[in-house]
């Protein structure tokens, strides 16, 4: 069990194991201790080295950035004064010019290191987080997991993970800002406590005021953008659903105009956000520049080089603070992402069950079929009467209906998903293939399958010649969702995959649809042969007569 939780953080594992099962997942809001926080903390610890390095590099870059301009300013002013006084001979120019070069290098190298190490930490951590998320989704009740898998939720989940990554990358940069601020405060204090105080006040304004403004503009306009975008989608969906009517009455222009109105609301909301961003940028620029001027004026009593040093340090630090504050704009979206991810974190899977050949009893269309191991049953009925849904309920890809199916005398609803599924090897009507190689797809059914077993399964699905013709053989990439295969080839690969799984019942949904007659005959003959060898039973949905000939029993759903 532990090997399967995939959460080696002990705390997480304990929580996952303790969780009652089956768990109903909160569909929307989740309150309490955040499991995502725990996972992120653990990953930050795991990537502590890289993150510390990134933070240190960021701090160096911050200090280098402030130092470069400030020391340069000090050097020029001091040189100017010395030149005027004719005291050039006693002037130590080696140290400042070296410091300037050092600051330039520090800034470059620091920034590079911060970005690289920050990304390294994020990329490594996100691998684990994706894996935990995937397990979380997979261990959710089938109805929820598959709804997510098929719908828009999937795209959003991926965006949400990317939002986590952005936050991970940005974290070390905060140390850069802190270091820049600390360095410039130290420098400003050389020009007197008043300078330091003013700088501290303005920096607080840049950071807290800027954060507040960025956050509230994101909240205000973000909400408007979201609701406008929702309204626009509803309007588009309603019009698209009526596409033939619109075409019949020549209403295309009218419909485009209607969409334009809703689109304008969205566009205006986005513009509002941009305008607010513009004002924020305006304010932070003004504060930085004015801060430098004020610090300069306040430093009139101290030597000119120190005054200039302080002014330039203030300028650099205030600009860095403003940039950091602006990032608060992404915070509402990040929080929303975390809230959506939270329910999917921390799930664990039961280990696969080892099935024993047992009787199967299946009810539908008012009758009931009781099958012994090895029996073959055709499930018939007009299209739309629920044959595919029945198969999906059997393999627990849909919530089971009480009284519909019993395995070994136990109602399917009372079995855990893994216990129910263990009895079936399923090749669905529309095959779902993994992006990857033929081998990866086949190994899904049997991780220990030998090449010989794979080729034999491919041969029984009449696909061996096609795969053998590819120079890469079993290692040929099939593309995303099998895009490099034809529809019929995808179907047969899905069939071969089902053959490789040693389950008491083979469940095939339209296995020969889209095949020509000769191939169909070959597939059916080999299936018959295979079933006799393995002793597997067969549940078949097909509107074609050839495969139905294999079945001795039939269950009519209508």
């Amino acid at each position: 069990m532990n090997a399967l939780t995939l959460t080696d953080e002990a705390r997480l594992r304990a929580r996952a194991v303790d969780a009652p099962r089956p768990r109903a997942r909160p569909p929307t809001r989740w309150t309490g201790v955040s499991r995502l926080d725990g996972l992120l903390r653990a990953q930050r610890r795991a990537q502590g080295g890289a993150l510390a390095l990134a933070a240190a590099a960021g701090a160096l870059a911050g200090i280098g950035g402030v130092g470069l301009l400030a020391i340069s300013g000090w050097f020029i002013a001091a040189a100017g004064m010395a030149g005027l006084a004719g005291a050039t001979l006693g002037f130590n120019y080696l140290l400042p010019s070296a410091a300037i070069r050092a600051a330039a290098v520090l800034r470059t190298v620091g920034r590079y290191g911060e970005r690289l190490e920050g990304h390294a930490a994020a990329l490594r951590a996100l691998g684990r987080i994706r894996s935990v998320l995937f397990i979380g989704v997979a261990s959710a009740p089938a109805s929820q997991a598959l709804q997510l898998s098929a719908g828009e939720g999937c795209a959003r989940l991926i965006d949400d993970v990317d939002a986590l990554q952005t936050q991970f990358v940005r974290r070390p940069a905060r140390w850069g800002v802190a270091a820049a601020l600390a360095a410039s405060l130290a420098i400003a204090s050389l020009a007197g406590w008043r300078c330091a105080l003013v700088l501290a006040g303005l920096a607080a304004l840049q950071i807290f005021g800027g954060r507040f403004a960025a956050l509230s503009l994101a909240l205000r306009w973000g909400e408007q953008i979201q609701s406008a975008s929702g309204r626009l989608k509803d309007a588009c969906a309603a019009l698209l659903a009526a596409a033939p009517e619109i075409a019949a009455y020549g209403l295309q222009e009218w419909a485009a105009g209607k969409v334009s109105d809703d689109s304008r609301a969205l566009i205006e909301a986005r513009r509002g956000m941009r305008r607010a961003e513009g004002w924020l940028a305006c304010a932070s620029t003004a504060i930085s520049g004015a801060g430098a001027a004020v610090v300069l004026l306040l430093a009139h009593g101290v030597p000119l080089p120190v005054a200039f040093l302080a002014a330039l340090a203030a300028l650099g630090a205030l600009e860095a603070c403003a940039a950091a504050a602006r990032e608060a704009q992404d915070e509402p979206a990040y929080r929303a992402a975390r809230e959506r991810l939270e329910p999917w974190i921390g799930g664990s899977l039961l280990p696969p069950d080892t099935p024993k050949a047992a009787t199967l009893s299946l009810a539908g269309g008012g009758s009931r079929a009781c099958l012994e191991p090895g029996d073959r049953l055709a499930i018939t009925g007009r299209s739309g009467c629920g044959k595919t849904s029945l198969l999906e309920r059997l393999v627990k890809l849909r919530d089971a209906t009480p009284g519909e199916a019993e395995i070994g005398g136990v109602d399917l609803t009372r079995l855990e998903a893994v216990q129910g599924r263990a009895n079936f090897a399923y090749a669905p009507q529309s095959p779902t293939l993994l992006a990857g190689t033929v081998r990866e797809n086949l190994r899904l059914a049997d991780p220990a399958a030998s090449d010989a077993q794979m080729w034999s399964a491919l041969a029984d699905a009449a696909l061996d010649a096609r795969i053998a013709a590819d120079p890469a053989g079993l290692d040929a990439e099939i593309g995303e969702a099998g895009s490099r295969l034809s529809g019929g080839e995808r179907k047969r690969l899905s069939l071969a995959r089902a053959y490789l799984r040693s389950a008491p019942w083979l469940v095939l949904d339209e296995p020969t649809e889209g095949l020509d007659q000769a191939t169909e005959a070959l597939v059916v003959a080999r299936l018959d042969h295979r079933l006799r060898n393995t002793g597997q039973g067969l549940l078949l949905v097909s509107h074609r007569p050839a495969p139905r000939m294999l079945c001795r029993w039939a269950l009519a759903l209508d």
Partner: protein
Amino acid sequence: MPSTTSIDLPPPALRGRAWLAAVGRSSSPRGRSAAASTVLDSLAAIGFAAGLALAIGRLPLGWQAAVPGALLAVASVCARGLLARTAIGAASRQAAEVKQAVRRRVFAAALAREGREPSSLGSALSVAVDAVEALDGWYVRYAPARTAAVASPLVVVVAMALASPVCALIVAATFVPFVIAMALAGGAAAHEARRQFESMARLSGRFADRLRALPAILAFDGAARAGEELQIVSEELAERTLKVLRIAFVSSAALEFFAALSVALVAVYCGFGLLGLLPFRPPERLDLVRAVFVLVLAPEAYLPMRRLAQAYHERETAEAVAEVVRPLADEPSAPGRAGSAEPPAVRFDGVSLAYSDSDASVLDGFDLDVRPGEFVALVGPSGSGKTTVLRLALGLIQPSGGRVTLDGRDAAPGGAAWVGQSPVVTPGSLAENIRLARTDVSDAEVARAAALAGLPADSLDRPVDERGGGLSGGERRRLALARAFLANASLVLLDEPTADLDAASEAEAIQAIAGLARGRTTLVATHNAALAAMADRIVRLAA
């Protein structure tokens, strides 16, 4: 308010960036004014440097003496803020115009496509709404930054030359290795940046694929292993991505380096110049004010390029999205057809149809002859192609084989009435909703059509909201029927006109349909036996 139709979309041959730029160019001068603001921004930076330099120069005389310079600096920096605000304002206005025009076209194309192939609703929505919205960053951040990256360094260097030609030369000289480095590594840097974008996409692509394939993974009890593999592959991909990043980040490090180098060189030159310790005789007389001015200005030369680098993500996203939007936005719309007064003969001659994304054909050698004025009911299981036959008759879809003709001419939209399950509703009165089918009619005619469809006269003023609130399911169907009566088309196509109705509404709808079919060529797709029984002929389609 941005106008809606002022933009002509460019020819489809342009790709990605060129397409976006061409769309932007045709959108009035706002893009230029955004770029102008970013260039003016450099002028304000010059003012700030000058103010600070003057203040420093006079600070030894007392803080009062430095106030004018400080005021100039503060005024410049405020102007700078306002210019930034103006630039964003102008650019977002341009973006608004572009998005509005592109969205209109994309929606029109999606509408045409949805009529042909009713399967892509989700992706059509995400293109029309989200993808179009993602173009924003290109116009607001990337495009102005690109103009500024060319123009601003020139302005800054010229201003520096006024104070110190040597410093201007130094900064300009650092551009030479920078440009060479970018030209040499530039192709490589762009390549690496793209590879970075791609490998990041691959990282989440793998995750997306396994989520998509979840039904199969669950059915084979493979979730635990898939999760483990996901982590292993993610880690492998992360290491490979990091190799790419190590190189990709070099280009931004080079930018940082040359920016820092130009500041350092200017500082060292000025410092030694002021000390009189330069190993050569400078061709200029440098004083503190000039030195401070060039030093404060030096970072500005590289600033626009750093901003441009920051807009990289916006650029990549928008250009990728443009490739999705472009083909839709450039899709031509189908020509219309004028209806005939006499009921037409409809003929399907060996019609075959296969949707592009699946292998199964919907129709295969379908033949049907409908006489003028005949009422034909199409029955058969769902998925047998009933709705497809109607869409072919309407001319929304072109068959992949065979011909569909009305009175011997190829079917094309227009001149037919359509009654579907979810008629269009728009905010306004019920009468206004009926009138959508035809505008050149009197109120009396609208009332007559409503009465024929079974809508009581006193309901015509009833308000209907955006979502059809205020209308029952039966009334919606009667609204669609009233439109068909009003349109008075000689060909009537009805798609499941009685689905989901209660017995009473169903009976009324069937009555109205019988009236509508009189004297018109009528095709109805239905599961309803009572409705089919009204027809002159029943055609059964097999699954």
